[in-house]
């Protein structure tokens, strides 16, 4: 089947699903998930195929170019995996609507088109398609989302339009927008235009990936989006930013085109600045995530932090940085989607997103808990899950280039992630069960299935990261980079090697020893959660003994006085409004005399000027 056909199918499905959903929500949602799974499988099966098609003239002499290269395949599969899993997840949500399906189909179309694109124009077109449809999707459910999504609108507009500018600048300067051809021509381009293009693309990549300083939209948009859409937003759509970033740093190797700039720690100045932005966004994301009380806001900031890792890794470049960054794309997609899904499942059952209003749900929703647990272990980068591999590789690159300050950011995010991932674990699943949640049931099967698949994949690539890295090696090989040495279970990097299977085995051996000792001891008496040590008092109200609100209050206090970076957009909007008021009094007065005067004045000035 032709590639453009795939995108066409996905596009045509949108209105069909919309009208189908008018008749039956259930059938339409099931059909939607079938289509998404089909698209995912189709893309997945194209592994190893390299072909391109160009069709559909969008503008004079410009066609849409799609193609399969290892890069497209990798990003396309990841994104479609998340979208298809979320599609299954949606089957049993409460708030269904035809409009959501229409927009979701468009989001999916845009995401496929963007990741399978072979040139910058196609990328930006489809990216924008997925962006605007996701924008409207965000506001469909929650009242609060209105104020938040508008930030996403402006940040993404800033990003998209800087990219659009860059695309046409490239088109004008080089006569082509194809990735590979542009990469060729960039080598001989004038220095100023190299920097211009790179900066503009960088703005887009950072804006969409949700990295500092354009991270401000993530908190609101991710947290107030419809619960079933947040996994796509965080797991899939931010990864297109990583895709662009990868093209910037690896396909157009930024390290070689900027070799005339001074380099710091073996990476060029441009990449160094980018790496710093990544580093700052790790720190900012981590600090803010720790301070959040709303579980979705918390995960949103963890996305900021992890996007920072991706930016940092890609900007560092080199073998380990690039591969670590690509691996982190996969890991974070899986983990954040699983985190958002498990939280969506909890919200589906309990109806709240505030951590302090939940608690003790582990007994009611054990599978959801397991999915969340595996996801957070992966996010925190703890060995038996896949998140460790990517972080390990990123550290290798940091050590190789000897960059202690950036390493600080990376470590900060890693250690800090223990803090923030643990907070929802405590708040939602552990601790005292609220009386109003006594009758909560486990999430329905269609929610459990996608979560379990993502969880199993996380575990699989945690035990055998070499499997995932062998794909990534192909990508790196395709772009002409150096591959990482692998054996079945070992990854060999600069500062030594680690054996993922061995580590897992060791863990299980330890676990078995523990289990034996556990069994040898006397059987424990099961008691209620309320039956705890209280210094002799009796407990009656469970909700008062749930410690999660302001859990990291001491930490909070340290950062209270920090300047908030989230308000620059709001103040910008006030500035624009003030300017508007000024312009209005100047040029749009209430009485006609004003217009006449301005017109006459302009006429005279223009004549005097042009004469």
């Amino acid at each position, binding site marked *: 089947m032709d590639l453009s056909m795939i995108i066409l199918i996905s596009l045509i499905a949108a209105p069909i699903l919309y009208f189908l959903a008018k008749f039956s929500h259930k059938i339409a949602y099931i059909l939607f998930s079938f289509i998404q799974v089909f698209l995912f499988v189709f893309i997945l099966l194209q592994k190893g195929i390299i072909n391109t098609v160009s069709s*559909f*003239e*969008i*503008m*004079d002499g410009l066609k849409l170019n799609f193609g399969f290269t290892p890069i497209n395949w990798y990003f396309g599969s990841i994104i479609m995996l998340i979208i298809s899993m979320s599609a299954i997840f949606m089957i049993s949500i409460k708030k269904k609507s035809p*409009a959501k399906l229409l927009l979701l189909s*468009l989001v999916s179309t*845009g995401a496929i088109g963007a990741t399978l694109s072979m040139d910058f124009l196609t990328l930006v*077109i*489809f990216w*924008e*398609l997925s962006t*605007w449809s996701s*924008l*409207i999707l965000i*506001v*469909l*459910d*929650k*009242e609060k*989302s*209105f104020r938040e*999504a*508008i930030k996403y*609108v*402006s940040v993404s*507009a*800033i990003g998209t*339009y*800087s990219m*659009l*500018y860059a695309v*046409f*600048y490239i*088109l*004008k300067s080089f006569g082509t927008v194809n990735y590979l051809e542009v990469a060729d021509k960039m080598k001989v381009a004038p220095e100023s235009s190299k920097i211009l293009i790179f900066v503009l693309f960088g703005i887009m990549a950072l804006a969409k990936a949700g990295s500092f300083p354009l991270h401000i939209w993530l908190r609101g948009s991710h947290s107030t989006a419809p619960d079933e859409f947040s996994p796509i937003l965080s797991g899939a759509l931010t990864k297109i930013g990583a895709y662009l970033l990868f093209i910037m740093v690896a396909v157009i190797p930024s390290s070689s085109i900027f070799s005339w700039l001074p380099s710091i720690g073996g990476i060029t100045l441009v990449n160094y600045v980018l790496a710093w932005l990544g580093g700052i966004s790790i720190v900012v994301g981590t600090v803010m995530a720790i301070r959040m009380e709303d579980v979705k806001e918390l995960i949103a900031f963890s996305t900021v932090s992890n996007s920072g890792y991706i930016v940092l890794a890609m900007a560092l470049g080199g073998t380990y940085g690039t591969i670590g960054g690509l691996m982190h794309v996969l890991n974070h997609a899986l983990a954040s989607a699983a985190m958002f899904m498990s939280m969506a499942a909890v919200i589906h059952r309990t109806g709240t997103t505030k951590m302090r209003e939940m608690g003790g749900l582990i007994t009611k929703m054990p599978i959801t808990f397991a999915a969340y647990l595996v996801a957070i272990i992966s996010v925190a980068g703890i060995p038996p899950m896949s998140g460790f591999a990517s972080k390990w590789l990123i550290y290798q690159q940091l050590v190789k280039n000897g960059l202690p300050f950036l390493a600080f950011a990376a470590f900060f995010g890693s250690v800090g992630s223990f803090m923030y991932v643990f907070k929802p674990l405590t708040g939602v699943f552990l601790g005292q069960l609220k009386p109003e949640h006594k009758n909560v049931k486990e999430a329905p099967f269609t929610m459990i299935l996608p979560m379990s698949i993502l969880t199993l994949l996380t575990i699989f690539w945690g035990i055998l990261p070499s499997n995932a890295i062998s794909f990534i090696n192909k990508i790196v090989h395709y772009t002409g980079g150096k591959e990482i040495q692998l054996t079945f279970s070992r990854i060999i990097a600069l500062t030594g090697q680690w054996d993922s299977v061995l580590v897992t085995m060791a863990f299980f051996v330890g676990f078995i020893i523990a289990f034996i000792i556990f069994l040898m001891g006397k059987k424990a008496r099961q008691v209620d959660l309320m039956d705890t040590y209280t210094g002799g008092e009796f407990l009656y109200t469970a909700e008062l003994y749930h410690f999660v609100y302001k859990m990291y209050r001491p930490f909070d206090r340290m950062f209270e006085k920090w300047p908030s970076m989230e308000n620059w957009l709001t103040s910008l*909007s006030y500035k*624009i*409004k003030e*300017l*508007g*008021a000024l*312009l*209005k009094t100047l*040029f*749009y*007065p209430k*009485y*006609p005399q*004003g*217009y*006449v005067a*301005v*017109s006459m004045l*302009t*006429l005279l000035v*223009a*004549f005097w000027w*042009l*004469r």
Partner: protein
Amino acid sequence: MNPTWLIALPLGFAFLGIFAGKFSKAFLWIASLANAIISLFIFNGNGVTSYIIGGWIPPYGINLVVNDMTRVFLLAVNLIFLLALVATSAEILKKDEKMSVAFMLSLAAINGILLTGDLFNLFVFLEISAISAYIMAASGKEAISKFAALKYLILGSIASSFYLLGVIVVYASTGTLNMADAAAKVTSLNPNVLLAAGLLMVVGLGVETKLFPFNGWAPDVYANASGRGSTILASVFPIAMISAFIRVITFVINSGKLNELIIVLGITTAIIGEVLAFSQKRMKKMLAYSSIAQAGVILMLIGIGSSKAYIGASMLLLNNGFGKLLLFSVASQIALVAGSDHFENVTGVGRKSPLFTLLFGAGALTIVGMPLFFGFRSKLYVISATMDKSLWIPAVILITAAIEVTYYFRWIFNLVKADAKLSEKRSPVPFGLALAGLLAVLVVIAFGIVPEANLDFFNRIGDLSIQLSKTLMGGM
């Protein structure tokens, strides 16, 4: 098909309509339907044809010129006019049958503006269209619309006087009123005289095309006119007025300095329009400023005057026509449903009746230029064309576009926002609005997703500008 019918038919019906009482409403429908069909016939053709009126051979007599640009614009104007009528058919106006006459008059005048090849004839049509526009502007329910119309009238009258002065200067120095003839002769003029004439005409046409700073009338008029009036004013009029602008300022005067001025003023218009639209609290006022900004971009492209710029400008014009048709008709209906079009009042209206959201959303998305919609394609041309001229212009245009995206989405979000205050009662979308709106949505989506080859007529507009041939234009 002789394009004279496009003018004669509505004009005749308008004349009859004065005496026909209730039937004038029917006449309006007949005239606009007939015009749409005729323009469809005219659309099938290419090249330049000149139609002589009254047997006087140009340059002495008046002629009507049909070229590739006119064909597209004629079809668009008549189609959008018809759609606008359908879309606002549910609205009940005071003195409806008398208003119909004004609408027919405007239809005739607009077709005349698009067709005529004579400078003074253009003045006459401009005046007719302006008078009908004043009446439309005054058609709103609120008293403020009368005052706005009066302000429009004062500025419009000055403008037409200036335009007339410009025409007379051209006539005095070249001895002709025929556009093609004049265009051939102005090249030998004293540059200062040409500049003076051109400037006077820029002021004259600038008022109608909403070029900054001659557009002071627009916000109040657009915001306060009746639904039908504002829809037609915002969607149909710009096409005709900018077509006149192209013919007079760039084809006849064609002075390099003037083009620079237009570029500067156009960009300023765009910036000011977007900034002001950003800070508006009323939906129709926001749309009005957005129209101003769109006009600024289009005029800036005309100032650039390359082939791509013309393609971009004509695409933007059509896009603006269909988009504003949707936006203004929906906004008027929403104002009716919600009692007012203030930001707080319209909150959640789209949630009650999703069709509002669909129509408004599609209109807004195409105006801001999102993929899948016509606006995106035109935006590509705009950036491409401006990029060839200077690196700064597209940057400014894109910054204003970012502002535009933000406020349009704010309004879309406001419509779909879940609001506790809302009663569950649905406010039905009138059938006419739904029909015309969906048709317009189909058009903008179709233009957005068909392959480039199917939009050949835009390329022909581009070719036309390359030749910019004086003889072609006049068809003497």
